[in-house]
C-alpha cells in the first residue's frame, strides 16, 4: 500500500492537475505539493520500515504486487532500501523544484508529477518491459519539458534528446525481443538465464542502452548538450529525479548483465572517466561542466559495477548517486533564470558546498564513497586507481573553475532550495562521518614523538588564535572569512592528533578547502583562488591515493611515499607549485595570508615528518631530491621576491623560499638536518606571522600593497615597523635574532653530510634574502612618506597585539634558543632512523662536531655594544636636529614630490640585468604549457561531440559494434 502510494500519488496529482491547472493555477500548485508531500511521507515511512537509514541493509525490500497473479506473470514493484532513499531525494527535488518550473507556466505541473512517478517506477522496477515503459515516460517528459522551458537553445536540445531516446527505444526493444524469445521471461532475472550468442547480443545492447541513458563518457554527447542547453531549473530537477532514477536502475541492471568478466565495465568506466574529464577540462559553459561531471558519475557507476559486489556496491552507488544528484540539483537551482547564461550568474557563495560535494571533499558525503571506492580499486589494479584519481582530479579542477568564476548575484527568493539541500548534504556528511567514525582515530600515533606533536599543535593552535582577531579588520571588498579561517585552523590543530591516514586526510582536506574558501573571500581573490584550489585538490588526491595504496599503514615506501612527497611539495608551494602559493598568499585577505604562510604551510612539514617516520626515515636518494627541490626553491623564490614589487607578493615568495630550507633539512635525514627543519619551522611560523600581520595592518590602513604607493610608514606606524624590523632581521638570519639558528644547524648538517653544492646554494639564497628583506623594509616603511598616506594611523590593536606576542616569543627564543632546543633535540634524537650526531646543549651553548653557538653571549654582546654606541653618541654632544623628509641634499633643488623621490619600483635593476643571461622560465608559463597540453588533449577528446545529433547516435551504434566484437572475442 505504502509503495503504491509512494509511486502513484504523484500520478494522481498529475491527472488532477492537468485539469486544475487550467482552472485554478495557484490551487493546482498547492494540490500538487500536497500530493508530492503525501508521496514523500510514504517514502519516508518506507525508509523507516526498511531501516534504510543505517545504509547497511540496503538489500531489504518491500514488494508491491500488481495485476493478477505473481511474477513472472505479473509485475512487481520492489522498494529496496537504496531505491527508497533515492526516491526520497526524488521527492525532495520535485517539491523544491516545483516553484521554479511552474513559475512561468503552471501547465508543466502534470509533466513534473508524472516524472516523479516515472522515476519511482523505474527505481522500484523489477521487469524489463516495465522499465521500458517508465523509461519512455521519462524521455517524453524530458523532451516536453525541455521544449516548454524558456531558454534559447531548447529546440536543439529537445531534438537531440528525442533522437537519442528514439534510438534507445529501438535498441532496448531489440534486447527485449531477444530476451523474451530466448527465455520466455521479462523479469530482470531473465538476463541471468541467457547463454551463448543471445547473451552476448543482449549484453551489448543493454550496455549501449544503459551507457547512453546514464550519459557515460563516449555516449554522453547528448547529455552534455542537454545540461548546457536546457533551462537550469529543469536541468536541476531532471538531474535529481529522472537522472538519479536512471542511474539507480542501471545500477540494478549492470551486475546482472550476462558478461563473463564484469571487470570490463570498470575498465570502460575508468577509461571514460579519464577521457571524459579531459574533455570536461575544456568546458567553458557551467551547464556543460555539470554535464561532464554527470558523465564522471556515470563512469564511476560503471567502475563500481565492475569491481564491487553485494553490500558495498549497493551502499557506494547509493551514496555517490544521491548526493551527487542533490548537489547538482542545488547548483542548477542556484542559477539565475533571468540571465542569458544562467549558471554564470548563480549565487557564488552557496555554489561552493554542492561543488565540493560533487568533487568529493571530506567530510562531505560523497567523499566517503569515493574513499571506499579507491580503497577497493587499490586492490584491483593500480592502473585503474591512477586513472580514477586522475579523472576525479580533473573533474575537481573544472568544478572549482566553475566556482572560481565568482558569480556574484544572489537570488532574491531562491534561498529555500539551497537551504534545504545544504541541510541534506550536511546531514549526509554528519551521518556518514558518524558511520565511519570508528575508522577514524585521534590517538596521534602517526607521530610518535609527543614533543613534536605538541610543537606542531602549538604552532597550529597559536597561529589560528593569533590571526583570528585580525580577521575582523577587513578592507573594502573583502567578505567575512573568519569562520573559514577558524575552521581551517581547528582542523589543523587536530592534525597532529590524527591516528591514521584517513583521519589525517580528512583534517588536511577540511583545512585546505576551508582555506580556499577564506581566500576566495578576499577583495581580489579571483586570481589566486583557482590555482590554490587546484593544487589543494591535487595534493589531496595524491595524498588520498597514497593512503589508499598503503592500506593499513599511513605511508608505505615506494610509490605512496613519492606521492605524499609530491603532495607535500604542492602544499608547501615549492618551486613550480609556487604558482598557487604566491598567488593565493598575495590575493587572500591579509590576515588570511598570515595564517596560510605562517601556520597552515607547516601542515606540509608535518606531513613530510610523519611520512618520513612512517617509512623509517627518508631514504638518501629521495632525501637529496627533496633537498635539491628545497634549495632551488629557496634560491629562485628569493630572487623572485627581490624582484617583485608588491608587499604581499614579496612576502609570499619569501615564505615559499624559506620553506625551501625546511625541505633541505628534512631531506638531510640526519639529526642535525631535522633539528634545523623543526627549528626553522617554528621560527618561520613566528616571523612570517609577524610579517604578514604587519602587512595586514599596512594594507588595512593604506589600502594598497604596491611598493610604489607605500613608503615612509615608519613615521605613521612605528610599532608595526618595529615588529616587522625584528622579524626581518630574524628571517634574514642575522645573528642576534633567531633566524640564524636554523641556518646554522642547516649548514652544520649539510657540511656534516657532505652536501656542499646544496649548502653553497642555500647560503647564496640566504644572502639573496637580504635583498628582499631590505627592499621590503625600505619600500614600505622607510624612504618618503607619500602624501596619500600622510594621515594613516597605526595598525589596529587586533593586529598589533598578536604581533607583539609573537615578537616577544621571537626575542625570547632568539636570546635563549636553548629553551626551545633542549626539548626538541632529544625528541628528534629519539626518532628512529636519523643518522648523524645530535647537537649538544650545555647551558646556553650549543655545540656540534663542527662548531659552537652561544646565542645568549652573542645577544648580550650585541646589546652591550649597541647600548654603548648609543649612550656614547647621546653623551658626546648636542642632539641632532630633525629635518623634514624632503629636506635632502638634492643638488640644490627641491625634490618635486615625495612620490617621485621614493625609490621603490624596479629596485634591483642591475640584478635583473645581471640575470638576463638566464632563460626566463615562468611557472605560470610552465603551467599554462601543461594546461595547454591538457587542453589539446581535452580538445581532441571532445572533438567527438560534434553537436550533430546523428553523431551521438553513431557513437552509440559504434560503441555497440565494438562491444559486440569485444564480447565475441574478435571478428
Amino acid at each position, binding site marked *: 500500500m505504502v509503495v503504491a502510494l509512494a509511486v502513484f500519488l504523484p500520478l494522481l496529482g498529475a491527472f488532477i492537475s492537468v485539469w486544475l491547472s487550467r482552472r485554478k493555477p495557484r490551487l493546482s500548485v498547492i494540490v500538487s505539493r500536497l500530493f508530492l508531500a503525501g508521496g514523500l511521507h510514504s517514502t519516508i515511512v518506507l525508509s523507516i520500515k526498511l531501516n534504510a537509514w543505517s545504509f547497511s541493509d540496503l538489500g531489504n525490500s518491500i514488494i508491491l504486487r500488481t495485476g493478477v497473479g505473481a511474477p513472472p506473470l505479473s509485475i512487481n514493484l520492489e522498494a529496496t532500501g537504496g531505491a527508497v532513499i533515492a526516491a526520497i531525494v526524488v521527492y525532495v527535488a520535485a517539491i523544491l523544484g516545483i516553484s521554479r518550473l511552474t513559475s512561468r507556466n503552471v501547465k508543466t505541473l502534470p509533466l513534473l508529477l508524472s516524472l516523479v512517478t516515472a522515476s519511482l517506477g523505474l527505481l522500484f522496477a523489477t521487469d524489463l518491459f516495465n522499465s521500458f515503459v517508465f523509461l519512455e515516460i521519462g524521455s517524453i517528459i524530458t523532451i516536453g519539458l525541455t521544449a516548454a522551458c524558456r531558454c534559447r537553445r531548447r529546440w536543439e536540445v529537445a531534438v537531440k534528446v528525442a533522437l537519442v531516446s528514439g534510438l534507445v527505444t529501438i535498441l532496448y526493444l531489440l534486447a527485449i525481443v531477444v530476451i523474451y524469445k530466448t527465455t520466455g521471461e521479462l523479469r530482470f532475472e531473465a538476463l541471468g538465464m541467457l547463454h551463448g550468442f543471445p547473451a552476448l547480443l543482449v549484453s551489448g545492447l543493454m550496455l549501449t542502452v544503459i551507457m547512453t541513458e546514464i550519459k557515460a563518457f563516449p555516449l554522453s554527447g547528448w547529455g552534455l548538450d542537454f545540461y548546457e542547453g536546457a533551462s537550469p531549473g529543469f536541468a536541476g530537477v531532471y538531474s535529481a529525479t529522472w537522472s538519479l532514477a536512471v542511474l539507480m536502475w542501471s545500477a540494478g541492471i549492470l551486475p546482472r548483465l550476462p558478461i563473463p568478466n564484469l571487470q570490463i565495465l570498470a575498465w570502460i568506466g575508468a577509461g571514460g572517466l579519464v577521457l571524459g574529464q579531459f574533455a570536461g577540462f575544456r568546458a567553458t559553459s557551467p551547464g556543460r561542466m555539470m554535464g561532464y561531471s554527470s558523465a564522471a558519475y556515470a563512469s564511476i557507476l560503471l567502475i563500481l559495477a565492475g569491481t564491487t559486489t553485494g553490500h558495498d556496491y549497493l551502499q557506494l552507488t547509493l551514496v555517490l548517486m544521491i548526493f551527487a544528484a542533490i548537489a547538482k540539483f542545488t547548483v542548477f537551482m542556484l542559477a539565475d533564470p533571468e540571465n542569458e547564461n544562467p549558471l554564470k550568474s548563480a549565487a557564488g557563495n552557496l555554489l561552493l558546498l554542492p561543488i565540493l560535494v560533487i568533487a568529493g571533499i571530506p567530510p562531505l558525503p560523497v567523499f566517503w564513497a569515493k574513499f571506499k571506492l579507491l580503497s577497493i580499486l587499490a586492490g584491483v589494479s593500480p592502473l585503474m586507481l591512477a586513472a580514477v584519481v586522475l579523472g576525479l582530479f580533473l573533474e575537481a579542477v573544472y568544478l572549482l573553475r566553475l566556482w572560481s568564476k565568482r558569480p556574484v548575484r544572489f537570488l532574491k527568493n531562491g534561498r529555500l532550495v539551497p537551504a534545504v539541500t545544504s541541510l541534506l548534504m550536511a546531514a549526509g556528511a554528519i551521518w556518514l562521518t558518524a558511520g565511519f567514525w570508528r575508522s577514524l582515530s585521534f590517538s596521534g600515533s602517526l607521530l610518535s614523538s609527543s614533543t613534536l606533536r605538541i610543537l606542531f599543535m602549538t604552532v597550529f593552535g597559536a597561529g589560528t588564535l593569533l590571526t583570528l582577531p585580525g580577521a575582523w579588520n577587513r578592507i573594502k571588498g573583502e567578505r567575512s572569512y573568519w569562520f573559514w579561517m577558524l575552521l581551517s585552523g581547528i582542523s589543523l590543530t587536530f592534525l597532529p592528533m590524527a591516528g591514521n591516514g584517513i583521519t589525517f586526510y580528512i583534517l588536511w582536506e577540511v583545512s585546505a578547502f576551508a582555506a580556499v574558501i577564506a581566500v576566495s573571500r578576499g577583495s581580489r581573490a579571483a586570481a589566486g583562488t583557482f590555482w590554490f584550489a587546484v593544487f589543494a585538490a591535487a595534493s589531496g588526491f595524491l595524498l588520498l591515493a597514497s593512503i589508499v595504496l598503503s592500506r593499513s599503514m599511513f605511508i608505505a615506501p615506494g610509490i605512496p611515499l613519492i606521492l605524499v612527497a609530491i603532495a607535500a611539495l604542492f602544499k608547501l608551494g615549492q618551486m613550480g607549485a609556487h604558482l598557487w602559493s604566491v598567488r593565493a598568499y598575495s590575493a587572500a585577505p591579509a590576515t588570511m595570508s598570515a595564517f596560510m604562510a605562517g601556520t597552515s604551510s607547516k601542515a606540509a612539514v608535518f606531513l613530510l615528518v610523519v611520512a618520513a617516520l612512517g617509512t623509517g626515515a627518508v631514504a638518501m636518494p629521495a632525501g637529496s631530491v627533496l633537498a635539491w627541490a628545497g634549495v632551488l626553491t629557496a634560491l629562485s623564490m628569493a630572487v623572485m621576491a627581490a624582484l617583485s614589487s608588491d608587499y604581499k607578493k614579496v612576502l609570499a615568495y619569501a615564505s615559499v623560499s624559506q620553506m625551501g630550507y625546511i625541505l633541505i633539512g628534512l631531506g638531510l635525514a640526519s639529526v642535525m638536518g631535522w633539528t634545523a627543519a623543526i627549528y626553522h619551522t617554528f621560527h618561520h611560523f613566528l616571523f612570517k606571522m609577524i610579517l604578514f600581520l604587519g602587512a595586514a595592518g599596512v594594507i588595512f590602513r593604506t589600502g594598497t600593497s604596491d611598493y610604489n604607493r607605500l613608503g615612509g610608514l615608519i613615521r605613521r606606524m612605528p610599532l608595526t615597523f618595529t615588529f616587522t624590523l625584528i622579524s626581518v632581521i630574524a628571517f634574514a638570519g642575522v645573528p642576534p635574532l633567531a633566524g640564524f639558528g636554523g641556518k646554522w644547524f642547516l649548514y652544520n648538517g649539510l657540511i656534516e653530510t657532505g652536501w656542499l653544492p646544496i649548502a653553497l646554494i642555500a647560503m647564496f639564497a640566504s644572502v639573496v634574502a637580504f635583498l628582499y628583506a631590505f627592499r621590503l623594509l625600505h619600500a614600505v616603511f622607510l624612504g618618503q612618506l607619500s602624501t596619500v598616506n600622510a594621515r594613516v594611523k597605526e595598525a589596529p590593536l587586533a593586529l598589533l597585539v598578536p604581533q607583539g606576542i609573537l615578537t616577544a616569543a621571537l626575542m625570547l627564543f632568539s636570546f635563549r634558543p636553548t629553551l626551545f632546543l633542549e626539548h626538541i633535540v632529544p625528541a628528534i634524537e629519539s626518532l628512529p632512523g636519523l643518522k648523524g650526531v645530535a647537537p649538544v646543549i650545555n647551558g646556553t651553548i650549543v655545540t656540534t662536531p663542527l662548531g659552537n653557538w652561544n646565542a645568549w653571549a652573542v645577544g648580550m654582546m650585541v646589546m652591550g655594544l649597541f647600548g654603548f654606541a648609543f649612550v656614547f653618541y647621546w653623551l658626546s654632544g648636542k642632539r641632532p636636529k630633525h629635518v623634514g623628509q624632503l629636506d635632502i641634499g638634492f643638488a*640644490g633643488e*627641491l625634490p618635486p614630490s*615625495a612620490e617621485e623621490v621614493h625609490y621603490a619600483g624596479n629596485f634591483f635593476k642591475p640584478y635583473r640585468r645581471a640575470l638576463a643571461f638566464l632563460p626566463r622560465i615562468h611557472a605560470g608559463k610552465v603551467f599554462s604549457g601543461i594546461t595547454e597540453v591538457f587542453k589539446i588533449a581535452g580538445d581532441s577528446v571532445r572533438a567527438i561531440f560534434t553537436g550533430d545529433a546523428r553523431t551521438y547516435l553513431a557513437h552509440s551504434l559504434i560503441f555497440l559494434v565494438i562491444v559486440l566484437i569485444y564480447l565475441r572475442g574478435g571478428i
Partner: protein
Amino acid sequence: MYCNKLPDKPDDRKKIWDKVDNMARANSLWVTAYGTGCGAIELRPLHTSRFDMERFGIAMRPTPRQADVLIISGYLAVKTLKRVIRVYEQIQDPKYILALGSCTINGGMYYDSYNTLNILDRYLPVDVYVNGCMPRPEAIIDGFSLLMSKIKAGKADGWKHYMENLEYYRENQKKVIHNWDLPDYNW
C-alpha cells in the same frame, strides 16, 4: 616636509677644545664645489698630481651634508642663487664660503647683465674671495691657505654672521629672487 625652525644659535662659549677643533677643521676642509660659472674649470687641476690639494687635507665631497666649504666658482645668476642658498644652508656648521673670480666680487665682465649678481656678499657670507678672471689653481690654493689660517685663528665665522643676520640676507635674496619658492629654512 621641510624644516620650519630657525637653527639653534651657535654656542659661543670658549672651550679648551676650540684650538684643537680649529686645527682639525683647518686641516680637513671638505669641499662642495658649486660650479656656477667658468671658474669651475680651474678647480679640476687641484686634484691632479701637479697641484694635489689632498696634501692639505682638502677633499671633494659631493653632498653638502658632509662638506665644510662651499666654493662658488664664478658669476652667480639669479636662477643659480636659489640653489646655492639651499646648498649653503644644508651644510652643517661650521661652514665657509670661498668665492672665486671677479664676478663674485663685483660682477666682473657681467657687471651689467640683467641677471647676474654683482656683489655676492650681500646674499651669502663669503669668507675668502679669490681674485682673478679666472684665478689660477695656485691662486685658489692660496685662497685655501688663507681660509685655513682664518679658521685656525677662529675668525672664519661667516656662518655665524649669516645666522645672526639671517633677516638681512633673506631680504636681499628675496629682492632678486622674485618667485621665492624655497622653504624658509633649508637645514
